[in-house]
């Protein structure tokens, strides 16, 4: 019962914070619309790029156009969900710690990590989310995908843990700032590796494939789970790998974060 009460409190706080943030956004309506439109256009350009390639070749390394579109669309979903809820982690590495602004989270009677992430609700992410859903829905009829309760359950599980891979990597790299004062550029470098996940890992050489599968495991956010749905394959590896990678990175992230918070020294004024 106590846990239930606690959870209720968390969700209530979450609602209040998001409401506050949306109010702030209404102040900058045009900025929000142009930001989301720009993300939409950026993804649209990439799809156009793929269609030009496929106008000249029958398949890419054995993958048909619709299959590539499915993987691409799948890749956008966890990225967008993470973007929507934890965008404030970027600010931790870029300036919050350096300027000493982290102090305010320490004074609050809620978990610091919760307080930081809940502060910003990044609506730009809807641009990626819309394109992702659109690409998945146009490609589903032409890829060999059986829609049954088990697959729907696995889809949801894959999505949740793929999102945790993103959040975990951002969490670990931003927490470095607790010791170094600033780590936004490190987060950027690791985060960019996610771009590798949009294409089948079979097109990369062995070293790159090993890195994106097992070291910075972004391949488990898109290619591995997506290929289970459209090309079969072992669910224990393709989906189970996503679950393991997501759990490990998230647990590591939380650990490093709390170690970091206790090492945090405010900036002098």
């Amino acid at each position, binding site marked *: 019962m106590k846990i239930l009460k606690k959870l209720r409190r968390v969700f209530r706080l979450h609602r209040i914070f998001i409401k506050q943030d949306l109010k702030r956004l209404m102040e*900058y309506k*045009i*900025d*929000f*619309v*142009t*930001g989301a*439109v*720009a993300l939409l*256009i*950026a993804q649209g*350009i*990439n799809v156009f*790029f793929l269609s*030009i*390639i496929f106008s*000249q*070749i*029958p*398949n*890419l*390394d*054995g993958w048909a156009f619709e299959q590539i579109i499915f993987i691409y669309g799948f890749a956008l979903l966890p990225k967008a969900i993470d973007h929507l809820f934890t965008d404030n982690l970027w600010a931790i590495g870029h300036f919050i710690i350096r300027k000493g602004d982290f102090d305010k989270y320490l004074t609050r009677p809620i978990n610091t990590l919760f307080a930081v992430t809940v502060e910003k609700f990044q609506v730009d992410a809807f641009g990626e989310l819309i394109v992702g859903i659109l690409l998945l829905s146009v490609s589903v009829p032409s890829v060999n995908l059986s829609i049954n309760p088990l697959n729907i359950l696995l889809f949801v599980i894959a999505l949740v843990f793929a999102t945790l891979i993103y959040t975990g990597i951002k969490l670990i790299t931003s927490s470095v700032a607790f010791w170094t004062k600033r780590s936004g*550029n*490190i987060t*950027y*470098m690791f*985060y*960019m*590796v996610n*771009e*590798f996940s*949009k*294409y089948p890992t079979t*097109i*990369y*050489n062995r070293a*790159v494939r090993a890195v994106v599968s097992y070291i910075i495991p972004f391949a488990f956010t898109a290619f591995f789970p997506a290929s289970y749905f459209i090309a079969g394959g072992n669910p224990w590896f393709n989906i189970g790998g996503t679950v393991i990678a997501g759990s490990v990175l998230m647990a590591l992230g939380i650990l490093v974060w709390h170690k970091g918070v206790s090492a945090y020294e405010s900036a002098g004024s």
Partner: protein
Amino acid sequence: MRKILKIYKPFTHAGVLLAAQYRINFIFFILGDILMCFINYFLWKAVFNSGGAETFMGFSEVDMVSYIFISFLTSTLAYSDGSYAVGEEIRDGSIAMRMIKPIRFDLAFLFQELGERTMSLTLAFVPLVAGVELFKFFATGSFRFSIINFVLYLVSLILAYLINFYFNVCYGYSAFVLKNLWGSNFLKDCIVGFLAGRTIPLAFMPPAVGAVLNFLPFASLTYTPVMIYIGMYSPAQIALSFALQIFWLVFFIALQQIIWNACVKRLSVQGG
């Protein structure tokens, strides 16, 4: 000319110091961006393997790999954040301080940015050019570095930077009216990048679209210098593209002057 250099040299010096300050930051960002080049490299390798043909719409595999890395280099070196800098100064009102000094607003920015570019020049230029040339050597078995094309590329690159600078300053003036920049800058970067051929060479576009895009100023920013570097242009095409680049440079300098004269009259600085 001598006098101009003497007046604006301190700005260049300040730019160099600024870039040195953010050196580490810059290295990490560039490493992140180079990852994108490698993704494209593997993607195109797979395309050539799957297609079976020697060329893809007139580009061989070596051409395509050179295109990916040299277009990244070109857009990094010709990059200008004039639109942010001008927009910020208009928003916080510090532009007023510039207006009371006996210097030209655009030249002060230009010389400062040239100083900042020294960092990307020293850190990105040599490794990327050397890397591409080594790749070409191992892929074809012969050394195919053309000094003439390289010199022409450098000239075209400088023109590309100047066009980009004045285009961005013109764009930054929109802050006189809008006072709000982040979204519009992001949108601009997306569209300009595409029209400049950073995603795909303009030669891959449908012929009619490609012909129009070739004459727009954006092709001059990335596509033209890169095509010269990889030797895809005939001497006649090179002459024509230089003429176009000079035309667009003069056009944007004139436009910048006109907008500046018109905007100064309606500048309102908030607070003080």
